[in-house]
């Protein structure tokens, strides 16, 4: 035997996933209801690189469509997909439950409630504060929601009960949504703003939005990737992980904190998008195995590629109207989730 046995999958997976992400980015930039012919886009992108001159035939106004309309949207969709996907894989690792994702654990709904709080208090004034309270409130309430889900789920079903945790997530999501509806009923003046926030602004994304979420995504992803080996240690359960010298509670807290931070940040710009965090990590496991050393980075890369690709039909199918990306992921995700549930039942 040699040390290469530690590699649980082909070393080609990561370059392949990077290539798929780049292709998705390129595809997203090439396709749209208005703008230049699709094949001119990559030529113009090459032309914009330093030291390269390529004649693409793209006018300045067409370039503005590419750079100011399509690219921010594509990059933002990529960041959202990467984050929801790696956060989903991380939650699955830390809760040792393959059926959870940020949406099902109530994180997204909690973030929505936090945002509603800020809108009802004084959004116009607070947005000019030194630190915008909106993402912080979304993060705080998202974190509270996932903690309540975990405490309730484990109290009634024990740590190994997958379905109890999911049911707890459904209950917490319902409760949080009801609280949000109650708040909105008492503050009808901010209803339009809140719903516009919940539905997200992927379709009107700007580079400012990208700059807003990028630090959170970078921080959250870096911390989560650094924990990928420890998530493998947690797979043998809390007791054995402790006996192996792991600080189980500390690992769980840090991973939940940073997965929630990333989720709350992207939910703030994309709205509630379900199932990405469950579809992508499961597909990755089917391809390369269950080790988080590979599942986490691949989920990150392929999650971005997936959401960029999922956003494309919504942009062109019902033009000039838009199909929200959450609708597309739900169409794909709901049957996928049921398929996983059925497979798990069959394997018991």
């Amino acid at each position: 035997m040699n040390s290469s046995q530690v590699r649980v999958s082909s070393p080609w997976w990561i370059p392949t996933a990077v290539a798929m992400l780049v292709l998705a980015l390129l595809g997203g930039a090439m396709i749209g209801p208005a703008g230049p012919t699709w094949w001119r886009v990559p030529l113009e992108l090459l032309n914009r690189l330093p030291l390269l001159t390529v004649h693409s035939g793209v006018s300045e106004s067409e370039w503005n469509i590419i750079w100011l309309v399509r690219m921010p949207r594509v990059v933002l969709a990529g960041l959202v997909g990467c984050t929801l996907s790696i956060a989903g894989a991380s939650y699955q690792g830390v809760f040792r439950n393959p059926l959870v994702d940020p949406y099902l654990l109530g994180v997204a709904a909690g973030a929505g409630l936090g945002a509603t709080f800020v809108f009802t208090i004084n959004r116009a004034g607070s947005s000019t504060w030194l630190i915008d309270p909106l993402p912080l409130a979304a993060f705080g309430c998202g974190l509270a929601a996932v903690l309540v889900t975990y405490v309730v789920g484990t109290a009634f079903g024990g740590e190994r009960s997958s379905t109890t945790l999911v049911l707890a997530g459904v209950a917490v999501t319902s409760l949080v949504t009801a609280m949000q509806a109650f708040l909105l009923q008492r503050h009808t003046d901010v209803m339009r703003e809140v719903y516009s926030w919940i539905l997200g602004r992927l379709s009107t994304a700007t580079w400012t939005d990208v700059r807003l979420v990028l630090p959170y995504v970078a921080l959250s992803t870096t911390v989560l990737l650094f924990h990928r080996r420890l998530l493998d240690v947690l797979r043998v359960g809390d007791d054995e992980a402790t006996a192996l010298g792991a600080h189980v509670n500390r690992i769980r807290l840090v991973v939940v904190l940073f997965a929630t931070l990333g989720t709350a940040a992207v939910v703030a710009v994309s709205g509630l998008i379900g199932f990405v965090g469950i579809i992508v990590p499961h597909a990755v496991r089917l391809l390369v195995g269950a080790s988080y050393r590979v599942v986490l980075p691949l989920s990150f890369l392929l999650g971005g590629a997936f959401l960029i690709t999922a956003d494309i039909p919504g942009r062109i199918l019902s033009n000039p109207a838009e199909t929200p990306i959450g609708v597309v992921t739900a169409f794909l995700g709901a049957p996928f989730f049921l398929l996983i549930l059925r497979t798990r039942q069959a394997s018991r």
Partner: protein
Amino acid sequence: MTSLNFEKVSVQYGQRRAVVEFSEVVRPGEWLCLIGPNGAGKSSLLRAIVGIISFSGNIVVDGATLHDRNARRRAQLVAYVPQSPVMPSDMNAYEYVLLGRNPYVSHFGSESVHDTAMVNSVFERLDLTDFAHRQLGELSGGERQRVAIARAVAQEAPILLLDEPTSSLDIGHQQQALELVDKLRREHGLTVVSAMHDLTLAGSYADRLVLMHEGHRVVGGTAQEVLRAETLAEFYGVSVHVHHEPDGTVAVIPRRSLRT
């Protein structure tokens, strides 16, 4: 070789005292086996050593108390094989044994070349090379037990704790697993503490036995000293025939109380 001293160790679950002021000295390289009926506190004592549950009193390894060690250092000193190890079915044997190197890897680090070389040598020494890449879900009970022991060996800890290492194995695999532990003990100078229900096997492999009952240490000594029919009748509530072999081993055979 490393010694292990228990000084008035107590473990409590709420109001229930699982272990009560347990004191014992395990000499370097010795195999001590804890015996006793269900609920005697054997598993609780082992779980306390590795930090899974909290305890009062002192557990001293080579002169330093475990309280003063951080989790990683403790795992470098003590390896633990639970009664029913959690073995994710989609994890392969190599990944599983590699987890044994966790105490030597920093929080954000990854395994070094030395760590992987160590794991490779464990596979070779334990003759497990053939199923390094097999999923744990595909392994038989005996193979899984050997892989669980391999993970503990990969920890390179001088003290090995085994909680019911043979409970789910047939008689052949029971013997194989215990012979493997004995071989490792002799070759690497391991100090072994095990909890076992099979009194004959416990007496055959361990240097000394300690009988526990309701959290208390009742009696300790060699198999001949501890495995006595009247002692077992008192604490297990069972009638047994104790057979002494010429080579010094002791066989404990339960007697049926009623014959119809």
